[in-house]
């Protein structure tokens, strides 16, 4: 029995046991476990030749593609730590992450390199590796390398050896080493990097494979963007079982009926998604016309799923089980709840449930007592192998989230303090109540309102800004910004929107910007966000699709 303690061991095992199983499909592109293993070996050898040191950060700035998987496994095999960046985010954000992570390598495509070359000049990058055509290379081509960007070399990995026998031993990581850093919204304007070790991600994979009972015949959809930690649970869980990961091409994913057809034609058996995406399919996907008999498990989480929509979905896919999961990038999966019967008229929220195997959760009230009885409220804490190692380069913020177990302060062990407020129901299930801070969800994405505000303040014409969440029946929250401008400024809404669009991922760009002469204040002089929200909702704008 081979020891599996590093993430890429999963791929190597799968390539041994299920070499011809499809590892990943994306539209017409398919790659087997054997080929993915070989291609990522080639990349690992290239990175090692380029001087990768164990633990070096390798930024992955690639479109949703098989190349992403080659990049991820290649970085891991060479002892590196992969750092995925949203390929659709403005290039300036990629630059921010390259600098913040002090990445030594950038894996990208020739197209994206054109966009980002202006942003990566002053960084710790030693070389750029192009992954174009990664999935299609079957014959050796010459290695390319040319100095550009002031001495930074750009190479391709085609032609590198496809076995790992020449890889130096000193690149071998241990399970405690950081495997990846996933960047998430940061309240002060800079995104923060969540470090996860090989052990952390393997624990998520074990959970994912176990929870969905994955076998090698399963076809597991991965609708989450690949730069979100949620996708790693799906991807590595599937790899562990030898299942196929089914990616949705962006063009198709935006048309709910096309998406439904793809789920049918690819015989997807497991689908873990966010309510807003599922709701669009319920409303516009013509699900009644599809044969979804292969779909046996639907998981959802990340935001509330209005009961009227959930019960409709359960009626449309009667052969499937439905799982409500609660998770975060920092804590991994914290709780699960199998949804049985849902009354379309119920007003109570769907519980987030109980801890999965190998995870312990508890909630502590304001007196530091663990909550035990139904109705008691407290903040959720998580312990277990899935929890993060910390925030990259930010010991202060890490110390706020990774704390000593409040119930066992005699131990050195750290637990994650989630900031989620919860209560208990009669069956001992946890029920989510809300956040303590300014983080909200929109379309299942985390948005720190402070990050949006900081970005808007960076515009010289903005005097005051308040970014507020307006409840929305489909996407959870719409982000609305109220702005008062500097005296004499004639800047228009469109200019401010463009300013945001050039700096923030699209789900963080306010869905509307309201210009005001001044913003209402509290008695203590702070902007009165509550009254702004009330006003907006009263205008009939907090609404349903």
């Amino acid at each position, binding site marked *: 029995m081979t020891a599996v303690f590093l993430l890429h061991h999963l791929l190597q095992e799968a390539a041994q046991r299920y070499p011809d199983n499809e590892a990943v499909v994306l539209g017409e592109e398919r790659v087997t476990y054997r080929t993915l293993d070989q291609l990522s070996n080639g990349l690992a050898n290239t990175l090692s030749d380029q001087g990768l040191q164990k633990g070096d950060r390798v930024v992955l700035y690639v479109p949703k593609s098989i190349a992403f998987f080659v990049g991820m496994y290649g970085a891991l095999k060479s002892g590196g730590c992969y750092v995925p960046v949203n390929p*659709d985010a403005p290039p300036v954000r990629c630059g921010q992450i390259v600098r913040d992570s002090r990445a030594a390598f950038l894996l990208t495509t020739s197209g994206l390199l054109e966009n980002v070359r202006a942003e990566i000049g002053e960084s710790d990058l030693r070389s750029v590796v192009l992954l174009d055509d990664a999935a299609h290379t079957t014959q050796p081509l010459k290695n390319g390398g040319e100095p550009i960007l002031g001495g930074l070399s750009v190479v391709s990995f085609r032609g590198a050896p496809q076995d790992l026998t020449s890889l130096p031993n000193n690149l071998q990581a241990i399970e405690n080493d950081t495997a990846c850093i996933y960047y998430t919204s940061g309240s002060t304007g800079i995104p923060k990097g969540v470090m996860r070790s090989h052990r952390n991600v393997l624990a998520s994979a074990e959970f994912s494979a176990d929870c969905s009972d994955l076998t090698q015949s399963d076809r597991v959809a991965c609708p989450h963007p690949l730069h979100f930690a949620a996708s790693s649970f799906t991807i590595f869980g599937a790899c562990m079982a030898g299942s196929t990961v089914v990616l949705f091409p*962006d*063009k*198709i*994913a*935006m*048309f*709910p*009926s*096309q998406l439904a*057809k793809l789920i049918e034609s690819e015989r997807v058996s497991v689908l873990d998604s966010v309510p*807003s*995406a599922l709701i*669009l399919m319920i*409303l*516009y*996907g*013509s699900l009644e*016309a599809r044969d979804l008999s292969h779909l046996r498990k639907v998981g959802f989480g990340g935001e509330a799923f209005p009961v009227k929509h959930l019960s409709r979905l359960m009626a449309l896919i009667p052969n499937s089980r439905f799982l409500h999961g609660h998770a975060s990038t920092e804590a991994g999966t914290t709780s699960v709840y199998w949804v049985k019967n849902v009354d379309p008229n119920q007003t109570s929220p769907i519980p987030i449930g109980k801890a999965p195997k190998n995870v312990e959760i508890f909630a502590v009230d304001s007196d530091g007592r663990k909550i035990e009885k139904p109705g008691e409220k407290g903040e959720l804490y998580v312990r277990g192998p899935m929890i993060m190692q910390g925030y990259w380069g930010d010991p202060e913020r890490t110390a706020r989230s990774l704390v000593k177990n409040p119930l066992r302060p005699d131990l050195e062990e750290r637990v994650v303090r989630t900031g989620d407020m919860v209560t208990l129901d009669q069956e001992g299930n946890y029920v989510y109540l809300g956040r303590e801070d300014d983080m909200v969800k929109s*379309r299942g994405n985390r948005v720190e309102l402070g990050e949006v505000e900081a970005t808007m303040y960076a515009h010289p014409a903005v005097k005051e800004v308040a970014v507020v969440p307006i409840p929305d029946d489909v*996407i959870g929250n719409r982000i609305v910004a109220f702005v008062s401008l500097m005296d004499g400024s004639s800047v228009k809404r*469109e*200019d401010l*929107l*463009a*300013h*945001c*669009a*050039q700096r923030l991922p*699209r789900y963080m*760009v306010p869905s509307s910007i309201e210009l005001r002469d001044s913003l209402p204040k509290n008695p203590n002089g702070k902007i009165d966000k509550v009254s702004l929200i009330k006003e907006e909702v009263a205008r009939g704008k907090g609404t349903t*699709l």
Partner: protein
Amino acid sequence: MKPVIREYITKEIASGRRSTPIDYDTSLLVQDILDSLSLVKLVMFLESNFSIAVRPEELVPENFSTINAICAYIMSKKGTPNTGKLS
């Protein structure tokens, strides 16, 4: 019809993400213009502005790939025998 649609898409959908202008034959099915949610927003705008009802099976790439395609689709809904593409 085309200028109205172009203005809406440029201002409310693409919102400054694009550095080049959006022409009537520019592909809209790219990440920096349409995504699943802005598509729904666009549909709501078209429905209210042109008094049509978009059926789920008509929400397909062929009908929304360019401003020209959108106009052809709307014309087919409003006039005459349905010549817009169904799935």
